[in-house]
């Protein structure tokens, strides 16, 4: 009896496998579905008419062959426009950096306020340019405002950069040292 039951069970299991596979949900990913619907629409339809494979066995993420050149062109266009945007941004930053350095020799309060404001700029290159311009100015009256800016920021790198600028401003300049030595 026992072997008969065993054999019956195996036979039932063998019959159940195709049924279970047939009931599995469609395994297409959003990625391959996009190719079917947009770029590879026609060819995917042709492929479906020529070959019939269970959707669960379809390769995930593989576009139809004729989609590749179009995808390459699209990627190149995105790269070019990204590169152009990046170049424009770089030019804007460089222009602002040049403006800030122009201010380093000015004593007008408005010029100093602009430099101090840019110490808090989102762009790290502009922030550093503002700090460098303040260092070039040698204006020690800005130190309290710089210390305040350091306290108000949570960015450790920004705090360090401000602290280095304050330390640099606090140093005696070569002109001061030579002047003291020559005129004690």
């Amino acid at each position, binding site marked *: 009896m026992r072997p008969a039951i065993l054999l019956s069970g195996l036979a039932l299991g063998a019959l159940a496998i195709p049924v279970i596979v047939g009931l599995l949900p469609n395994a297409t990913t959003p990625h391959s579905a996009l190719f079917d619907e947009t770029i590879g629409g026609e060819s995917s339809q042709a492929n479906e008419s020529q070959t019939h494979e269970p959707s669960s066995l379809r390769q995930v993420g593989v576009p139809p062959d004729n989609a590749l050149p179009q995808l390459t062109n699209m990627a190149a266009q995105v790269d070019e426009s990204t590169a152009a945007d990046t170049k424009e941004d770089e030019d804007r930053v460089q222009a602002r950096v040049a403006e800030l350095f122009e201010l380093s020799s000015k004593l007008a309060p408005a010029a100093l306020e602009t430099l101090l404001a840019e110490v808090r700029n989102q762009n790290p290159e502009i922030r550093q340019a503002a700090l460098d311009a303040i260092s*070039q100015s040698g204006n020690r009256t800005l130190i309290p405002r710089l210390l305040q800016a350091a306290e108000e920021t949570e960015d450790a790198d920004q705090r360090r950069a401000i602290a280095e600028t304050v330390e640099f401003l606090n140093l005696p300049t070569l002109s001061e040292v030579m002047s003291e030595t020559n005129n004690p």
Partner: protein
Amino acid sequence: MPNTLKLLLGFAFFAGGAVQSMAQNTVLNIVQELRFKLTGYYQMSGTENSTTFFRNAGKVSITNKDIINLLERQLNIIFTTDAKLMLISATPVDPTPRVVVRDKFEGEKFDTEVTQFFGAEVLASIEDTKINKNPLKTNGTSYDVLAFELKLTEANFRIQGFANMHVGTGKYEGESAAIVHTGKVNTTGSGEYQVSVLGAAVPVALFGTVQVTGSEVKAMVE
């Protein structure tokens, strides 16, 4: 001839077309601004207590203002607070660009040549760039080593350093005319300053940055 030099000579021919109608001794130069931000360590007088000798290091800052002050005394010229240190490089390639002090007097710009006292040298320049052929446009990075030397009666120093420079296109009258490098050079070096006319020179150990900015190309008569 290295490929880079061939390419840059190509720029020279292009730029040459822009000045065909000009006098023969008019050349195109790249005009950039230099900003020095250096820290110097120098030996101060020693101190001692009953048990210990102390050798003390002093620290000093050096910026464009200090360099221009020193040049003023050397040249017997008084510059304004707007005076700038400029680097003038010949096109297409100039391993020893000139340094001038640019100032304004009654609204007019004037340059004072100081190369005999303050020199610059491009020791190495390796580019990693893309050069668009038409229109001519350059973009990329260069790995440069630059040196600057100040030789004055009262003070002298030599600093040298590496920079990852941005490479761009300099324009003359709206047309691409030169490849221009801009960036910040991390420098180290040494020097000394004179305590007094009869006093000893004080050695200084230096580190800091030199910022090179600007991509202006100007026609100059030489």
